[in-house]
């Protein structure tokens, strides 16, 4: 065991009752108790407007909480910003660049803004960061000529200018095409493999499911759940799905066979599978004269956990 790192004790990020009410009266974040374990890839999941960016702005000392506290790397924010932030790389609500400067000059400027960054190694670190995100060839081009994907990667490069203990990435794949999304996700996986704690916000369930070891779920400014991704997914049961032109009879037989929570929707009858061999269940259906078109077991996904958790689908389009 190495020396105890403050972040390892009570979470790389730890908030208690963190609340933000904007001037207009909008309660954007409401009593947030968040704990991000060291070394995790932590998904911060919630539909648009659920308070993810506001939370991140409070963690980074950009926005003053209305009440509650936030600690990052074990130190209170925003008070310890000068100690904490050099160890944190952040992408907040998309990239923002100086369009009239080259990608390289954008990074040189951000690095010069960090009073603890050594100017003697600045050029080398900038070059390495550009290389890392695959922008070395476009480094001399003005940032306003960059595509959205390139801007996003330049933003990531800024977060990688120095070795960081924590990366805070707010919807890093927003607005990208599938290819761009894949590239960014690959990069995040690589960074996480290096041992950096990654705090990743997203409104995309499958993104979080693919990348994250832990997650927290936000809705309307409140935290609905947090924990290891596997534990949360396990919270939902698998479902038996029977497709048949005889739904009423099928539902009766399934209940008879011990299936719980049976519901019929058109020609689909679903229920929690009983604790017996499913072949027997199927045989019972057939024996009762139910014409079975399909008989499948749908694995519980994270989405089912959400339905269980929130009583509604996780549909960001709404």
């Amino acid at each position, binding site marked *: 065991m190495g020396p105890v790192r403050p972040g390892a004790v009570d979470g790389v990020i730890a908030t208690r009752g963190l609340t933000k009410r904007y001037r207009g009266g909008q309660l954007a974040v409401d009593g947030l108790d968040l704990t991000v374990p060291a070394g995790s890839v932590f998904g911060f999941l919630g539909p648009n407007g659920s308070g993810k960016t506001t939370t991140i702005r409070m963690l*980074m000392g950009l*926005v003053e909480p209305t009440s509650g506290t936030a600690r990052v790397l074990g130190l209170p924010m925003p008070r310890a*910003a000068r100690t904490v932030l050099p160890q944190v790389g952040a992408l907040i609500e998309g990239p*923002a*660049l100086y369009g009239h400067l080259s990608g390289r000059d954008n990074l*040189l400027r951000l690095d*010069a803004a960090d009073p*603890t960054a050594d100017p003697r190694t600045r050029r080398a670190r900038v070059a390495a960061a550009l290389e890392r995100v695959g922008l070395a060839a476009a480094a001399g081009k003005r940032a306003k000529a960059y595509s959205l994907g390139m801007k996003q990667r330049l933003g990531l490069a800024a977060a990688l200018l120095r070795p960081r203990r924590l990366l805070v990435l707010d919807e890093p794949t927003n607005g990208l095409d599938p290819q761009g999304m894949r590239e960014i996700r690959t990069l995040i996986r690589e960074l996480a493999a290096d041992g950096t704690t990654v705090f990743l916000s997203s409104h995309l369930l499958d993104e979080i499911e693919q990348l994250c070891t832990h997650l927290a779920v936000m809705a309307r400014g409140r935290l609905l759940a947090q924990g290891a991704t596997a534990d949360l997914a396990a919270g939902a049961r698998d479902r038996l799905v029977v497709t048949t032109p005889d739904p009423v009879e099928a539902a009766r037989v399934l209940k008879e066979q011990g299936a719980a929570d049976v519901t019929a929707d058109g020609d689909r009858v679903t229920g929690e599978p009983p604790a017996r061999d499913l072949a027997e269940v199927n045989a019972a259906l057939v024996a009762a004269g139910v014409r079975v078109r399909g008989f499948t077991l749908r694995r519980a996904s994270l989405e089912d956990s959400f339905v269980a958790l929130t009583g509604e689908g996780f549909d960001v389009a709404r």
Partner: protein
Amino acid sequence: MSRADPATAVAAERGPAPLWTLGLLRSELLTTLRRLRALVLLGVLAAVPVLIGVVVKVRARGGGSSGAAGPAFLGQVTDNGLFLVCTALAATLPFFLPMAVGVVAGDAIAGEADVGTLRYLLVAPAGRTRLLLVKYATVVVFCLLATLVVAASALLTGVLLFPVGELMTISGTTISFTDGLLRALLVVLVVAASLIGIASLGLFVSTLTNSGIAAMATTVGLVVTAQILDQFPQLHAVRPYLFSHYWLSFADLMRDPVYWPDLVHGLGLQVLYAAVFGSAAWARFSTKDINT
């Protein structure tokens, strides 16, 4: 914190090197001066003295009565090209110079808030006070640079188009050309310093909004408003406190001996503006929520 942490320890041990702030200042200056906007403004400022010089030259050749009206020193330009420096500054000081400063100062914080780069500077972490100081220093440097551009362009034009040599002060005495050059340099410094008031005001406005355009327009609007208010004798109680009130007193440097009272009042007023609006800008910026 008694718990040891390798990364924190390294950062704390080395600590932020104070001199490294110069790197941010340099970056800020380059970023500001590489904007097309700044270059256009400086270009216009460089063009004004050339324009004045050519017009005066053409009219002098045509035998027209030069100097009947127009900016101060216009009449003396044909006698000595060095006076074009004063003429050009007197011509640009009411509007072009403060407008250029107002645009740069108004844009300083609000422009970065507008495009969102402000949040990345602050998480770098630039530090709010440090960033504001660097912005302030940059705007002050721009005041000097803008004034120098006018003066240098005027000096060059004056030397090329008109005779130079010993020159007569407003008081009627004669001073050497070198002495004249030194006075011109002093004029540049005083004019640049007299722009600090509007620069401070602009920086304060810049902390109030997240729109670069709004901040620039407001600051330039303040320049115009101050000039208009300064026209009304009825406002005699207020006028001495307008940042533009003593602007043209730089001409007193061309008296022999130099007439100081208005110059001192003018510079004192700029210090007052710098203190009041500099503090206001700090109070605002150090507590502001950065939502862009």
